[in-house]
């Protein structure tokens, strides 16, 4: 109990549990929602096996078909 003239930092006393969870750099940060993750990785379509075509080739095929008036299958 604080006496008259004492310097008080706050108007309530932290419990030991509260103090433990408030150690700098160690406290658990809570947040709502899900964190931003939108890179499944820059590595796509590796490795290739015989007969497979790459995205580069597929985009090329699409543009070549477009130029000659063909549509997608």
């Amino acid at each position, binding site marked *: 109990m604080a006496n008259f003239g004492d310097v008080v930092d706050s108007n309530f006393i932290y419990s030991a549990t509260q103090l433990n969870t408030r150690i700098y750099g160690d406290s658990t940060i809570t*947040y*709502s*929602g*899900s*964190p*931003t*993750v*939108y*890179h*499944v*990785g*820059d*590595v*796509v*379509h*590796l*490795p*290739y*096996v015989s*007969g*497979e*075509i*790459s*995205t*580069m*080739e*597929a*985009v*090329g*095929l*699409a*543009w*070549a*078909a*477009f*130029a*000659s*008036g*063909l*549509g*997608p*299958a």
Partner: protein
Amino acid sequence: MAKKSGSSFGNFDKSTVFDPRPVKPITTEFSKGSVPDSLYTINRESAWSRWRRGYEIATARFYDNSYEYPFVYMIPVPTGTPTPGNPPSIPGVFKGFPTSNKEFGMHWAGTRNAGSLRFDNIFDKNGIPASIKSVTEDANYWYIQLEGAWSTTNPLPPPLYVPLPGSPVGLKAINGEILEDRIITPQGIPITRDTINPNTQTRYGYVQAVLADTDPFNGILKLRKAGSVEATPDKNLITPASRPPNVGRFLMTGTRYCCSCQDFNRRDYGYMSSLNRVSESLRSKFPRSGMSSLKPGRYEVMSLSGVVDNSAMTSAQANRDMLIVSPSPQYNVPPTVTPTTSTKPGAARDNPGVFRDFGSMYLRSTTDPSLPGARAEGMPSYEDYAASNNVITSLTDTWTPLLDEMRYCKHIYAMKYEEGVFPPEPSDFPVGIGSMVAWEQRLVSETEKDQASAAAKLQRESLSIMDVPPYNCQAPMMMPMMQKLFNIPSNFVKMAGFKMLDKDGNIYIPAKGEKPSA
């Protein structure tokens, strides 16, 4: 653009009868009055303010506003292509930014992952992969000679160069893409700015630059120095790059970003849901654009089964077509007569009832100030079109590739921040706006408040299932963005190609009626 009612971007004009009596001579002076002055325009257009705002919206509601839809787009191959076992695809993510400035309360941005197109998958006639053989440079560009035997009979393969039947010039479909020299060995994992070379124990580093042009018959790529970014051995991103791409490595495409917001599109899309709802007086409104704001250019029309269809999408099974209309055949996109391009003399960059064009395409000067007679990088220039003797000689609109950092909106800067590739601070700091501290403090509090209220409004009014990607990908607002994002012909953007990943990483295919797991 004079101040108008509605959102901060204005709204469609109400038709009014012209009354000449109140017209008075213009008495305003330069930089005064309601006509935006040049300083105001420069500040609004500055990359710095987008960069700063992008950081703010990325951090203001980082965890609450995470409307993300990862996808893998299966590229539909033309008829007759052997169906491979592991079909080619484009991975990426749609991300929603809640806003009060857009119908349905959301700006949709999208990314296509880096490395979708890899140059170790390009081979010459002898089967030699196209690594960087040598680099030369001039004041503004690097010229990359690719390994391999390239000639007029063996040009670079599509999509770098697509020959057109009956035309001397072909398509250069991926001009405007960002290229990075991040592949060290064929079929290897791309390095990041953190990858350490085991031989030297220093980071590899890489260079990123925009592909300005392609010389398909000599196997030369022209990369632009202005706006290039270098990842240095001490893991910093600096611009412009201090060195050219590394000889011996393979190029790959960098992450491509597109956004449906007004700033990226330079367009104001119609607010149709409120047109006949708010008040009786609005019922008389017919969407139109003022004659004074019309500029020659191209616009696109969405159609379903040959009928113009600007409505919201109602089915994941129906595929719309996009037709791009241009004022004369030389400005067709691409420059040939194709099923999805047409010519209409007098076409403007405007589609009343769907979108209104802002005008003023931002062009940056790329000349080197150290050269005699060159302009310094300073005042931006704006161009919509150039004409001589009433004949249009050049067009600049949203269908012109302008893919450098000046085209990034704040949402794209926010996504770059979240991805860990936030670019260095742009140098065009706004001028004449008083205290930057006060401006930033207001920005911080207002962004937080705006994001919270936009998200709350979104929760209250909610989005229907057809208002989120990929279900809305062929809506008039989304289709031009999708075509730019994937950089494949728009008739190759099919609803059936979307495989979506739900929160647990499970794949669901909307075109088959599948839903994310609850």
